[in-house]
């Protein structure tokens, strides 16, 4: 690891980072472009950077790159705060991430095909049966359905962190309807507008082909006999918090954004209601959860979905991305087994490691967790959104004891992980440029093959010391640069 003198110019308040720093530290010899960007940043006046940051923020509001929070009387637009200092990945770093993501997505798709067909992995005893079949995200309706190209997860987001050695580790897979890609592209556009002097002359890989790639992947899976397939994006509508992203993607793909009420199924074929009557639809990129997709098959009270859609899909008359039932692959319980899943289907070692995970349903894992509870993060597997977990170092003795008995009562419901010293990146804060923790979510599109958008969404925890990156708790995002080799 090579260090670089940091504490001058813009970095005056930065000090020596305690964690792996995305811009000060490097594994092996430092990339000259990273050094150049750091020098350009150092020469920046802090007030000037703040002015640019305000301009960027105003523009986000004006452009409506916002999510709308509705209350009884009014609606409030919120933005995802944008930190101007980019997060940089060298070509070599990106190579690891990209190969690792492709490998993981390939394994996930093979895993899903297997569990919805022959279930060999269960027969071979690599995974406990009930972990898969008893999982609330396992969809028995999917058994035997042959999805086009064998692809279930067309769009995948992989949450990746770096530890204190700078190693990339996968924290979570998002194989249902991962969001955030619109910010990747909008952040780049914003960067080019407000910091042209920082970007000038650098060779950074572009992010603009995402929409075209997604459109191609969607067209590739449409029914074969259709020469010019009609692709649509299915959104829950303007009241959904991610509506901006739905609009963004529909525009980037050049396809209509439809809601459930715009679609109708007749004779197991899907149509959209247009001013010229019903027009056929062949492929649907849906941003609607499984539960809401089709009231005939899932939640009968869904007003957002389309009656008969799953039947049309089953008969091969329409393609749906992502497929139903992918949630079983990104579940926390399955996550722990992902290295074994990769090995099982691909006969390869994982290129990106998991965060070391102890599976409490296994005796060793449980014992280790009980013995080291005060240093571990313990998470229930069925939950999402951080419910029911405990962060050992932050918990009191009473809390730890209480948790210990919960754990013993139902060990299969838990996994545990060490607290990771996440990498940081210089971030403009109220008291100057400070180190803040970041993560990375690259987006992969799978049609005929898997393609990864260079970079991904870098989320940053704007609160000092915080490991929480979501915007409701003071999280923001950064433009993520992948340098050309």
């Amino acid at each position, binding site marked *: 690891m090579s260090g670089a003198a940091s504490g001058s110019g813009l970095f005056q308040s930065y000090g020596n980072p305690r964690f792996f720093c995305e811009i000060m530290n490097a594994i092996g010899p430092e990339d000259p472009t990273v050094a150049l960007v750091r020098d350009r940043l150092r020469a920046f006046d802090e007030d000037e950077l703040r002015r640019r940051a305000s301009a960027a923020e105003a523009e986000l509001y004006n452009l409506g790159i916002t999510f709308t929070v509705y209350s*009884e009387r009014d609606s409030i637009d919120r933005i995802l705060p944008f930190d101007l200092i980019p997060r940089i990945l060298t070509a070599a770093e990106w190579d690891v991430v990209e190969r690792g993501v492709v490998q993981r997505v390939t394994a996930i798709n093979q895993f899903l095909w297997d569990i919805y067909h022959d279930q060999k992995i269960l027969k071979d005893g690599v995974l406990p049966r009930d972990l898969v079949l008893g999982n609330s995200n396992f969809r028995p309706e999917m058994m035997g359905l042959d999805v086009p190209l064998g692809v279930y997860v067309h769009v995948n987001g992989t949450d990746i962190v770096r530890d204190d050695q700078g190693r990339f580790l996968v924290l979570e897979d998002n194989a249902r*309807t991962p*969001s955030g890609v619109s910010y990747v592209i909008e952040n780049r556009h914003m960067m080019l507008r407000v910091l042209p002097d920082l970007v000038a002359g650098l060779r950074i890989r572009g992010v603009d082909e995402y929409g075209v790639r997604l459109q191609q992947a969607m067209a590739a899976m449409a029914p074969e006999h259709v020469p010019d397939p009609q692709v649509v994006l299915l959104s829950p509508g303007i009241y*959904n918090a991610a509506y901006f992203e739905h609009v963004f993607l529909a525009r980037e793909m050049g396809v209509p954004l439809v809601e459930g009420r*715009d679609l109708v199924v007749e004779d197991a074929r899907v149509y959209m*209601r247009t001013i010229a009557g019903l027009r056929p639809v062949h492929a649907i990129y849906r941003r609607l959860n499984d539960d*809401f997709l089709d009231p005939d098959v899932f939640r009968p009270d869904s*007003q957002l979905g389309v009656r008969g859609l799953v039947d049309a899909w089953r008969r091969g008359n329409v393609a749906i991305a992502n497929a139903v039932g992918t949630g079983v692959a990104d579940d926390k319980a399955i996550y722990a087994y992902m290295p074994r899943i990769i090995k099982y289907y691909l006969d390869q070692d994982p290129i990106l490691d998991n965060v070391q995970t102890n599976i409490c349903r296994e005796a060793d894992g449980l014992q280790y967790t009980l013995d080291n509870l005060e240093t571990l993060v313990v998470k229930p597997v069925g939950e999402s959104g951080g419910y029911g977990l405990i962060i050992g170092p932050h918990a009191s003795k009473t809390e730890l004891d209480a948790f210990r008995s919960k754990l013993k009562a139902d060990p299969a419901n838990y996994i545990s992980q060490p607290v990771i010293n996440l990498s940081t990146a210089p971030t403009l804060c109220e008291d100057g440029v400070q180190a803040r923790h970041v993560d990375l979510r690259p987006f992969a599109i799978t049609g005929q093959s898997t393609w990864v958008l260079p970079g991904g969404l870098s989320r940053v925890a704007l609160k000092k010391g915080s490991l929480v990156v979501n915007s409701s708790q003071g999280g923001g995002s950064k433009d993520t640069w992948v340098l050309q080799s």
Partner: protein
Amino acid sequence: MHPVHEPLRRGQALLSRYAESTVWLARYMERIENLARIIDVTDTFTRTGTGENDWRSVVQINADEERFFAGRSEADVASVAEFYILDRENPNSIASLIQVARENARTLRPLISTEMWTHLNMMHKWVRGLTRSDIRPSQLSTLCTRLKQECQTHYGITEGTFYRDQGWYFYVIGKYLERGNQTTRLVDIKYHTLLPRDAEVGSQVDMSQWSAVLRSAAAYHAYRRMMPRSLAPAAVAGFLLLNNAFPRSLVLTLRQVNWALSQLRTDYGLRRGGNALERMDELRASLADQTIEEIILRGLHEFLDWVQMQLHHIHDEIAEAFWAVIPAPAEPASGTAIAASASQIIGGGGMSQTLGGMTQVIGVTNQIDPNDSTEPPEPIQT
């Protein structure tokens, strides 16, 4: 994926929901502009110190007497400006109209240009931030001017950036249906409130008030040029209704709607607009067949009533042809906060009143999918 050299009409058929939202977006923006014009001219009117009924006539034009007087005893500059500019309870206020205009624009965001959206978004923010201090008598005219300009900026951006396919024709239909409707209301109310009583015919007051009516429609100079020797009420009414070159006259607005409907029929083969076109032919023929004197003789108010009815019917025929869906029975929404905001947007049906402004009935599905948000709710470490 249509090759660029293919003719327009082979392009994607417009979603019905987009067509509907486009018509309403155009209508609401036009309505905001007209409201600003009427408030501005009434302000000028009253400042020249004439009738005490002027502010009341603004309420009458919009057929809002019931709602207005439910909470207010007097129609004066402060109460009317408040009611039509700031009052979010009033679905016909500029604050409410910009809200529904923006919601329609959000629905249309995949279709309209980024520049259209950005401007509307900024205008919305500005209007929703207005306070009592912005509608003080000393500020009112300046405010109305800015409101008009914002609407005109919207039209300019739309003209310059909105893709010219079916969506554009629906925009034209909405805009001119609304404008025609607004012009008939202006004439109807002003003609009767200003109808010269025996003693006042040709008096100075009468003249200045009619010139103010013309100014509110930006028609004063055009009128003077065409009719340099007369400012008779009948001539003014005739100009606003029947002139075939003035951009806000009834005849001209009908011609625009007719043109757009015909384009949809010929360029896109949309025969469904046939009923609307037939009604339009009938309406236009009746206007072509009569002079303003004949119309007044037979009863101007009755005639304008009939015209407004026809405009409603034409809107309904268009809705029936292009976006009518048998609505699914509405179920109670799961998110109650959202349901409240949706009902605020929906407003009244408004169709039964001849004079009442048409209001959109939005079939918004406001069920929330709890798992789909802008970003995953997960902290890094958990």
